[in-house]
């Protein structure tokens, strides 16, 4: 369609435009300067100038997770590129479609330890789906198109394109659409028909099936198909940390989250099941606990788009390689005829599970020290904001409470760092989500520790009219680490006190910090102020809002399966194991 001669830098921008990219997050520097020049003239791409490249990376992740589209971040060479590393690693663990574009020193300088030179392709090799080093302007359109294709198809993931300064400055004919030839990349999305039949057969024979639903269902956009499948089978559903919202929490078949801080019914249903219908989940150690004692009586149907996930941790009786949406659609077509002749009676199974649901609901006790109960604060944020809002959490206790006490009814409403466990994810991810979904209410639910890692992006939010709401669940400490010290290290609180509470040094004062960043800052210390503050935050849209909720530091996340032990040892609360009466 075009044979104009462009500089490499113009090719980068033009390629992104033609690929439909509308928003990018980044920060310029020497080696990427040429690309920032034509970026200034682009009418199709909005560039958000961040305050730290890690913020650009997480913002692109939040954008991708909230919209289901590709997230794009840009940084310069050397430290600019290495500052993206944490976000790239995070995207790799959670299968987030991310394109990272970095400037590189001139090709003749590579390998000379030049100023701001870092081998970012080498550094990110273990944490990217693929990476490219471009040294020639003519290769840019093809490389960007290939990178976007790799990042967004198959199992999504981060792709890095490192472009030397001379490639950006060089001139070449701009050929579009470019020929993308990836002989070694042929993701399988369509399942094998025989495997679908085998899966249907196992489902028809099962007396105690569980749908074990992972983040793959969210990435695939298979939530509608999942709802149909779950209702066809009538089995209980558990949604992992990455899959919260893939199945409505209001649905009576949903037992909530399994794993280390999962609900007793979800953990136990997996444990006692005779068939795990595993959809886009990967038997993570935080879900299985001690893997040898995990669901020992269960057969496994394992559906994943990544063949390497199948059989990696747990043997699959019926492995199905394919995209969750296509696989579930085919299962939904196959199952009715199979179930018509032999619909299993799940009433005993449900009787057992209903007993657990009744006896072991999620709950919490009021704080003993007169401070706010963090679970209550988070619960109220969810109730007042509703299921159409987006919630981005950091990592730690507040993340687990947000996964437990907010009711999710739709996918892409819950954003968090699951696999990598990246503290500092929340504020920039919420910013990215708000850019991608400007009409939605977007909360960053953060800890006082996490917040101090990336709060500089409040400046980006304030200046660029990105009115996110930040709820700091301030317990004046690294709460989850402190919880482990309470439980496993004899209450020896080594280096977990952050002094951010109102009865501590209060460094920093989060309200003053918020105001310094042009945000509305609110402090909440009394229970009766909670709703008022949340409502004020929801109604304030001319600037970002930061609420400093002063909560009890002794609150703990329950239930809990301690690291490395069997899920049979789930503790409902401290020193309180569930009783399995009448079963095995």
């Amino acid at each position, binding site marked *: 369609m075009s044979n104009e001669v462009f500089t490499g830098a113009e090719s980068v921008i033009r390629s992104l435009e033609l690929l439909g990219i509308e928003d990018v997050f980044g920060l310029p520097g020497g080696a990427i300067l040429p690309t920032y020049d034509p970026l200034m003239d682009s009418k199709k791409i909005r560039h958000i100038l961040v305050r730290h490249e890690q913020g650009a990376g997480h913002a692109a992740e939040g954008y991708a997770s909230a919209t289901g589209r590709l997230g794009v971040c840009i940084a310069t060479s050397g430290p600019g590129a290495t500052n993206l590393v944490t976000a790239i690693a995070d995207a790799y663990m959670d299968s987030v479609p991310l394109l990272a574009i970095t400037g590189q020193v001139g090709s003749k300088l590579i390998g000379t330890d030049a100023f701001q030179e870092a081998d970012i*392709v*080498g550094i990110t*090799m*273990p944490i990217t*789906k*693929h990476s490219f*080093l471009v040294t020639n302007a003519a290769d840019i359109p093809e490389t960007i198109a290939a990178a976007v294709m*790799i990042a967004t198809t198959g199992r999504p993931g981060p792709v890095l394109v490192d472009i030397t300064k001379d490639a950006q400055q060089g001139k070449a004919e701009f050929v579009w659409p470019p020929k993308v030839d*990836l*002989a*070694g*990349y042929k993701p399988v999305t369509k399942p094998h028909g025989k495997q679908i039949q085998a899966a249907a057969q196992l489902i028809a024979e099962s007396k105690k099936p569980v749908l074990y639903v992972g983040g793959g269902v969210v990435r695939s956009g298979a939530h509608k198909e999942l709802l149909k499948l779950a209702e066809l089978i009538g089995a209980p559903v558990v949604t992992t940390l990455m899959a919260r919202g893939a199945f409505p929490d209001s649905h009576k078949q949903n037992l909530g989250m399994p794993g280390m801080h999962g609900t007793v019914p979800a953990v136990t249903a997996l444990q006692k099941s005779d068939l795990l219908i595993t959809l886009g989940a990967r038997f993570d150690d935080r879900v299985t606990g001690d893997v040898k004692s995990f669901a020992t009586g269960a057969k496994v149907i394992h559906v994943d788009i*990544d*063949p*390497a996930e199948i*059989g*990696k941790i747990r043997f699959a009786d019926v492995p199905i390689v394919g995209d969750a949406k296509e696989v579930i659609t085919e299962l939904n077509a196959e199952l009715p005829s199979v179930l018509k002749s032999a619909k299993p009676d799940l009433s005993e199974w449900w009787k057992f599970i209903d007993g657990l649901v009744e006896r072991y609901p999620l709950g919490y006790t009021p704080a003993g020290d007169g401070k706010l109960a963090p679970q209550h604060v988070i619960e109220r944020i969810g109730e007042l904001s509703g299921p159409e809002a987006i919630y981005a959490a950091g990592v730690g206790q507040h993340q687990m409470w947000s996964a437990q006490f907010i009711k999710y009814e739709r996918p892409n409403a819950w954003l968090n760092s699951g696999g990598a466990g990246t503290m500092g994810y929340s504020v920039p991810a919420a910013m990215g989500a708000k850019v991608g979904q400007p009409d939605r209410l977007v909360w960053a639910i953060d800890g006082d520790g996490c917040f101090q890692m990336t709060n500089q992006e409040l400046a980006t939010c304030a200046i660029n009219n990105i009115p996110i709401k930040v709820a700091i669940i301030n317990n004046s400490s690294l709460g989850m680490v402190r919880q482990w010290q309470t439980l496993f290290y004899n209450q020896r609180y080594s280096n977990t006190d952050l002094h951010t509470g109102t009865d501590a040094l209060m460094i920093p004062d989060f309200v003053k910090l918020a105001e310094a960043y042009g945000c509305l800052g609110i402090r909440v210390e009394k229970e009766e102020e909670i709703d008022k503050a949340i409502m004020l935050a929801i109604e304030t849209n001319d600037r970002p809002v930061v609420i400093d909720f002063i909560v009890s530091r002794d609150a703990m996340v329950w239930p809990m399966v301690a690291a490395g032990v069997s899920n049979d040892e789930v503790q409902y609360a401290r020193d309180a194991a569930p009783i399995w009466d009448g079963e095995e």
Partner: protein
Amino acid sequence: MSRHVLSLLVEDKPGILTRVAALFARRGFNIESLAVGTTEVEGLSRITVVVGVDSAPLEQVTKQLNKLINVIKVVELEADQAVARDHMLIKVKTDSSTRSAVLEAVTLFRARVIDVVSDALIIEVTGDTAKCAAFIKVLEPFGIKELVQSGVLAIGRGSKSITEKVLK
């Protein structure tokens, strides 16, 4: 631990060897030998890698290798359906009293002498891993001064080629 010979058809792109080697390192797979070279098709290289694993992880190794974008194909070459060869250059100490015994060993093992000086020979030997090991054992008493060897090279028996199916 069992030993498997994998043959990888890869795109000849910068960094491909690093990608393969780094994958083995970070997933905790064990490389026994590695040989890389170009093929009959321009732009394609072949990596022969001998990996020590139990049978279940071998599947993980091949699946993870297949995930690398520049890896086009991974095949396991089973011993009875492939030929595999090591290649070695050995510098052995010799003098007039030992030279004929060394040359006799060279003949027996169908090796070749490729350089001679008064007090040493350089010998080239090709064969499967067991033969090469046996040859070294025979030469050891004479004094091996230096030894270099390639990784195992392997190719499937019969007239088919692993590049055939790939290149439509």
